[in-house]
């Protein structure tokens, strides 16, 4: 019996050694250790043994079974590792193959600029005001201190629909409408939108373009408030090192009127092709709201004052991104628009 057991062990170990994969090793396991295997058979045959031999043989069977099991498990672990390595080898890929493109679109560059401006001023407590693109002459001109026959109307050749209705030439009528609607209350708004002028389209002109304006009305609003606001804006939009300067200018709806330059963000003020060697770039027009404009909207200019500013997102996008032709914004060439997808932090 003992000899029989030893023989079984030797046999089993040889089979284990010979098994070359997980499957054949499993067959060995079933053959020797399974319910129908010889070891089980031996255990079943123990009943025939004399009672005093049973514990000794039983212990021996268990020892052999455990030792065979242990060796088999070891072997199994090795074969499994081999198998997985083989599988991994097969599954290896060329990681330089192109990935499956994740489809995405992006904002039009002008929307990008407009939203950046909107978001800055929203953080300063402004609201966004919008108004009609087809506008009454009254809101587009008269309420902004541009009575009929005013020479400054020369600057704004317009698309008229009728004698009193036109495509707005700037977003300022939204200011006039907001002031009228607010009935004397303080205002802090940003007005973005499309505007139209009777210009032939070329590299620097477009009959349709966009504007974004701001208006603050309240008691004792000062020109220094305008300057401080614009300075923060310039730093946010064009970099912390930006300086601003104001130059006198003229707009019928503001007095005093200024234009704002920022120190060139490309050369830092040393002079380059972006700033045309001046170190400064003209960004926007601004001023203190003209008392006539306040009066017409029902505010008392003796008590209430305000400032307004306005700029062209096209110009800002052209400067920021180096776009040389304004028509790119309106041809919707995917090769152009799709370039404005990434962040700029």
């Amino acid at each position, binding site marked *: 019996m003992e000899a029989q057991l030893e023989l079984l062990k030797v046999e089993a170990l040889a089979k284990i050694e010979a098994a070359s994969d997980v499957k054949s090793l499993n067959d060995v396991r079933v053959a020797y250790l399974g319910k129908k295997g010889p070891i089980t058979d031996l255990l079943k045959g123990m009943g025939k043994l004399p009672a005093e031999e049973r514990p000794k043989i039983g212990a021996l069977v268990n020892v052999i079974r455990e030792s065979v099991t242990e060796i088999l498990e070891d072997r199994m672990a090795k074969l499994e590792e081999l198998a997985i390595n083989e599988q991994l080898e097969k599954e290896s890929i060329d990681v330089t193959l192109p990935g499956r493109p994740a489809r995405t679109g992006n904002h039009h560059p002008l929307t990008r600029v407009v939203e950046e401006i909107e978001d800055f001023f929203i953080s300063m407590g402004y609201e*966004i005001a919008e108004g009609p693109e087809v506008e009454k002459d009254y809101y587009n001109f008269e309420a902004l201190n541009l009575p009929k026959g005013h020479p400054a109307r020369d600057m704004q050749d317009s698309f008229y629909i009728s004698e009193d209705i036109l495509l707005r030439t700037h977003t300022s009528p939204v200011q006039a409408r907001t002031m009228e609607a607010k009935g004397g209350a303080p205002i802090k708004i940003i007005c973005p939108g499309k505007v139209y002028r009777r210009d032939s389209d070329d590299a620097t002109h477009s009959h349709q373009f966009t504007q974004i304006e701001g208006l603050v009305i309240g008691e004792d609003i*000062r*020109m220094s408030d305008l300057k*401080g606001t614009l300075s923060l804006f310039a730093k946010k939009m064009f970099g912390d090192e930006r300086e601003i300067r104001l130059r006198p200018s003229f707009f019928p709806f503001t007095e005093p*009127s200024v234009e704002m330059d920022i120190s060139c963000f490309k050369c830092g003020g040393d002079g380059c092709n972006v700033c045309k060697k001046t170190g400064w770039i003209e960004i926007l027009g601004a001023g203190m709201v003209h008392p006539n404009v306040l009066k017409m909207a029902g505010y008392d200019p003796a008590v209430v004052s305000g400032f307004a500013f306005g700029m062209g997102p096209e110009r800002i996008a052209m400067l920021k991104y180096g776009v040389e032709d304004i028509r790119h914004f309106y041809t919707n060439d995917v090769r152009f628009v799709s370039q404005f997808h990434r962040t700029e932090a």
Partner: protein
Amino acid sequence: MLVSTKWLSEYVNIEGIAVADLAEKITRSGIEVDSIIDRSHDMTNVVVGYVVECVKHPEADKLNICQVDVGEETTQIICGASNVAAGQKVIVARPGAVLPGGMKIKKAKLRGEESNGMICSLQELAIEGKLVPKAYAEGIYVLPESAVPGSDALPLLGLDDQVLEFDLTPNRSDALSMIGVAYEVGAILSQGIQLPEITYTASNEKAEDMLKLRIDAKEDNPMYVAKVVKNVKVEASPLWLQNRLMAAGVRPHNNVVDITNFVLMEYGQPLHAFDYDRLETGEIAVRLAEQGEKITTLDDAERTLEAHQLVITNGKEPVAIAGVMGGLNTEVHDGTTTVVIESAYFAPGSVRRTSRELGLRSDASTRFEKGVDPNRVEAAAERAAQLMAEIAGGEVLAGSVIVDELDKTPVRITVSPDYINNRLGMKIPLEEMLAILDGLQIPTEAVNGKLIIDAPTRRQDLRIQEDIIEEIARMYGYDLIPMTLPVTESTPGGLSPYQSKRRTVRAFLEGAGLYQALTYSLTSKEQAQSYALETAPVTELLMPMSEDRSILRQSLIPHLLEAATYNVARRMESVALYETGSVFLGEQEDGLPQEVEHVAAVITGKWVDHAWQAETKSVDFFVLKGIVEGMMDSLGLVEGLSFEQTVLDGMHPGRTANIFQNGKRIGLIGQIHPTEQKKRDLKNTYVMEMNLAKILAIETDELLYVPVPRFPSSSRDIALVVSSGTSAGMLRDVIRSAGGKLLKDVRLFDLYEGDNVEEGKKSLAFSLTYADPERTLTDEEVVKAHGKVLNALTTEAGALLRG
């Protein structure tokens, strides 16, 4: 406005200041200097020459061999100009000279003859051809006899000069004159200015004895000054005068005309000179034109006048269009001996209207349009008379013939220094303010702590307190204004719900793979209403620039299709664009069209393009439909969204649907009609347009969390055969309503037509999910609910259940 610094220095001392610095100071304090033109162009070796001898070149008809005295020597120069002649003083570029175009002058041989330099035209010295006196427009320029051979020609021609080009804002018409500029520069440099001194000896004869004056339109012409000058000799102006005019961008003609132009530039007061004899009547009468009345103007064009246009007449017929252009019939000519000088104030509005109607803009009209200085009308006439006496040998008759009802009182402005400082956010001392106003020569008094200002009539832009604030701020320096932030009630700011949801829509569409487009609102008549969700009377421009941009659009689709074609034509065959923008419908009560914001999209080409893993897919209806559904879902509006097949112009009749939200039509979606696609050079192209305003106005429920199911669900699949015309949407609705509240989800997972399915039928397979949030459903409950669904499908939808 071109400001010659050489000319300017006659009125204000600018010595010792670099021109670039001067320009910077002017720009920073109020008038933008666009550019500085160096008229010398760094030319050297350009001298006066005396043509001693001039003979034809034996070998070339058009060339002349000239012996030219250039001071240190007499040298041979070949000249091709036809007007060169012996005895002339000319401009010679000597060997070594570099002319403005970069042309280098060297010794050369022309057809065997030596040439040591070049005799120059003014154009060769970079004077624009349109400014060169007509006599020399086609050849070399001839200098006055007094020119000294060998001397530098540049100062003689006034080319040792730098010219400031002003970009004037419309309010600063005061700087449309040299004297006006002098006031400004004087203030900037804290200096006084020197005005021209007008002295001449008048004859005993009185102007009013020779000329009668009548004004019948005093509203448009409140002031008219006429002077009469006899015995003038019309000839070319002296060189200094010609130089001044050319530097200012005016072409010299003859001394009389040049003097009027000179005074125009100097005083900003346009003048006109009539030939007294050609007036014939000895009378000037100003009146409104008769409707249809004709006049031939100085440019030799016959103009037909309208009844509101102001004309100068000789009492019978028009001799000038007031403030715009003189008439040919009374033009000063070589034989003119007696001149009438007109200096007048014409109402800005009248001149602007007439000049615009006639399409005639001149140096005169631009000044009248903006309003000339009432206090310079007479002075300018006197200045012209003086110059006619000095330059043209004229005899100025005593006095002027004047009609004057023009108000010349200055506008009085009272403003307190506190008001000025409060508005600026500064603390400028009173003395400083007074010094600034004094520098600008604005008469000011400080009375009881207030500034009382009499705005000079030359400064028509000074009317109200704020104008004074600007004067003080710009001269004090905007750089000195501190930076503060508005102290107001603190407001939260932010986007409105509408604006915020619009950003959601954009973000969704971009995340779904569409690029944002921006197209024009103006379109052509044919396209204005194509593909429109809704049409209404169109909004048309009165004066379009082209037919293509003459009407406001009622749909965004046509321009998006144009953008698709544009890209496809440039080999960008896959295009996915969307746009949000207004369409313009009809007319509201206030006369404006209703502006409705829409969102639209176009897709064409491949939607998935990942070829090496065999994943490519062309766009189709369901790609775009999925985007619409996703967009509506992002707004919480996917419940109640439905699509209903329809037929629309320009769209594929079998692949087009109206989009509804809770029964209200909110948009359209579908394929462009194949013939239309072909016309636009597009392959299969799908579009959608929706009424964004309507969608964003729908209020949705608050977003509340629904507990994640804790109990397992059961699913059952159904395979059906129905007639081909039965819509999947209808079947889904039947399933949903029969499934009751245990039915949580219905999903179509197979659609088949063809082999093994009877002709005219199709097979669909749905997967249904049943669940109860409170417990695990028993098999019997699921069977019961599912049985109702199966029953409804057979009885209500006529479906045949398979397997």
